[in-house]
């Protein structure tokens, strides 16, 4: 698959402090790439470097197969972004704001009205953006990113401040742009549940290092396979099976680290034989959050990076 964004050994120093360490980002075309990481990991710094807002201390950035340093303007023509909080001119209306950016981009006049419609701000008329609610400002920010119909969208926390219907709208919009229009979208977010629903690829950054980068399906397999049993007497049950099976002790119900069918039926028979009632058994689907936290904790090396 064609790579839209590729960084090689990307590093950034703020003074003596190295905040981004040799990041090798690889974003394929037409995919939604979820960029994850704890607070302060360096997500926004990397994004700013991709947009040439911040200069890399070392390393190469290549977007659309062109070197960013030497082709900055050509590349940025096809990139739309929303970084940190939405930027706007407070004393202008939403339409006037879009017009400012539209004129710089040089796209045709109809775009401003189109985009207003797409993000649901057509009704705002003469209202100045400084009087908008947070959600409305966020929508405007997304609108500005979409204005030039860019091939690459970089969105930092796009659903921030949006109500549930707004979040759904943006989710469909993103999926549409990727699937139907083959645009590439990088989303950085804390909302793992959101990323779970839209992302095809995931990149996890922690303390300035990219510790994971792969398809989201691969990420899901990293969780330990676990089956949860609802039993009448937990202590007895644990004693009975702890010699043969690994038990996850931290959970509310009895959880055994296996999903093998024979193992499950073996456990059930053992428990029943010893008069422990088994009310139910089900496989546990690990949440992205658990996997994420596990990876962050374990991040000693680049063993997950592809």
């Amino acid at each position, binding site marked *: 698959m064609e790579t839209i964004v590729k960084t090689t050994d990307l590093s950034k120093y703020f003074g003596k402090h190295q905040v981004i360490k040799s990041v090798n980002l690889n974003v394929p075309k037409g995919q939604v790439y979820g960029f994850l990481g704890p607070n302060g990991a360096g997500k926004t710094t990397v994004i*700013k470097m991709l*947009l040439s807002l911040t200069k890399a201390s070392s390393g190469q950035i290549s977007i659309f197969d062109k070197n960013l340093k030497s082709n900055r303007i050509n590349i940025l023509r096809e990139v739309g972004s929303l970084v940190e909080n939405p*930027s706007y*001119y407070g*004393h202008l209306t939403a339409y*006037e704001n879009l*017009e*400012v950016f539209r004129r710089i981009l040089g796209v045709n006049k109809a775009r401003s009205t189109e985009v207003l419609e797409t993000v649901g701000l057509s009704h705002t008329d003469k209202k100045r953006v400084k009087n908008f609610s947070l959600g409305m400002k966020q929508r405007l920010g997304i609108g500005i990113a979409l204005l030039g119909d860019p091939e690459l969208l970089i969105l930092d926390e796009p659903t921030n401040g949006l109500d549930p219907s707004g979040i759904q709208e943006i989710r469909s919009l993103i999926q549409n742009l990727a699937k139907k229009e083959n645009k590439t979208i990088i989303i950085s977010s804390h909302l793992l549940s959101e990323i779970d629903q839209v992302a095809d690829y995931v990149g996890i950054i922690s303390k300035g290092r990219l510790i994971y980068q792969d398809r989201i399906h691969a990420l899901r397999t990293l969780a330990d396979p676990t089956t949860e049993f609802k039993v009448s007497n937990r202590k007895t049950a644990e004693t009975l099976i702890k010699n043969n099976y690994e038990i996850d002790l931290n959970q509310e119900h009895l959880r055994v680290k296996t999903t093998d069918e024979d193992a499950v039926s073996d456990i059930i028979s053992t428990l029943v034989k010893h008069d422990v009632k088994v009310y139910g058994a089900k496989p546990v689907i690990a949440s992205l959050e658990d996997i994420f936290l596990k990876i962050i904790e374990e991040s000693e090396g680049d063993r997950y990076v592809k």
Partner: protein
Amino acid sequence: MLSKLVFLEFTKLKRQSVWMLVLLGSLGILAVPLANFLIRYDYIYDNYDGDLYAAMFTYIMSLMPAVLMLAISIITSVIANTEHAENTLKQLLSLPISKWRLYLAKLMVTMTLLFISSVLVFVGMFVMSQLLNFEGNFPLLYALTLAFAPLLAALPITILQLWLALNFKNQGIVLSVGVFFAVLVMFSDRLPNWLPLTWPTMQVPNPLVNISLGLILGLISYVITSIHFNKKDV
């Protein structure tokens, strides 16, 4: 692209108080000699041997440099603040525009606003002289020099202020520097002639000297600050 950016800078100044400032600044400078003439016309007439033009020019020249310093710091602050207010620099600079063009556009708008002020002062002087029936012909060249030369001589200072305003989100810095300059410029006669701060006061007999110095140092400052703006992380 540059003309587009300049046009957009003016769009961003829509519904802003800076226009009122340009008007009031100019009227302010004119108000002082006007008040003077209205209150003690005869005294001035005797003092200046009937040359009321000289009187008017002296009054205006005593105020012009200080007011100019303040005007420069306030205007550059407003122009920079259009971007600092809601962090639009990061959005603008992720667009396909050259950073130096944006910087130049902002400088051009600053100079335009200051130029408008100067035009108002020039026109005001003419109107005042006619309304009060000054004797003799309106000294066109002198009036033009008075109205526009300090502005050109102050170009390095304008650029410095613009650079400070854009570099620091805290506008207190620009405004403090502006006030500092405004106060200091009033003591120009005690300061060495080579200090750029004294150039707007036109102390050297030939105004072309100050204007040229202003333009040359202005160009150098522009190149240096423009390069810095280009390299800066946002």
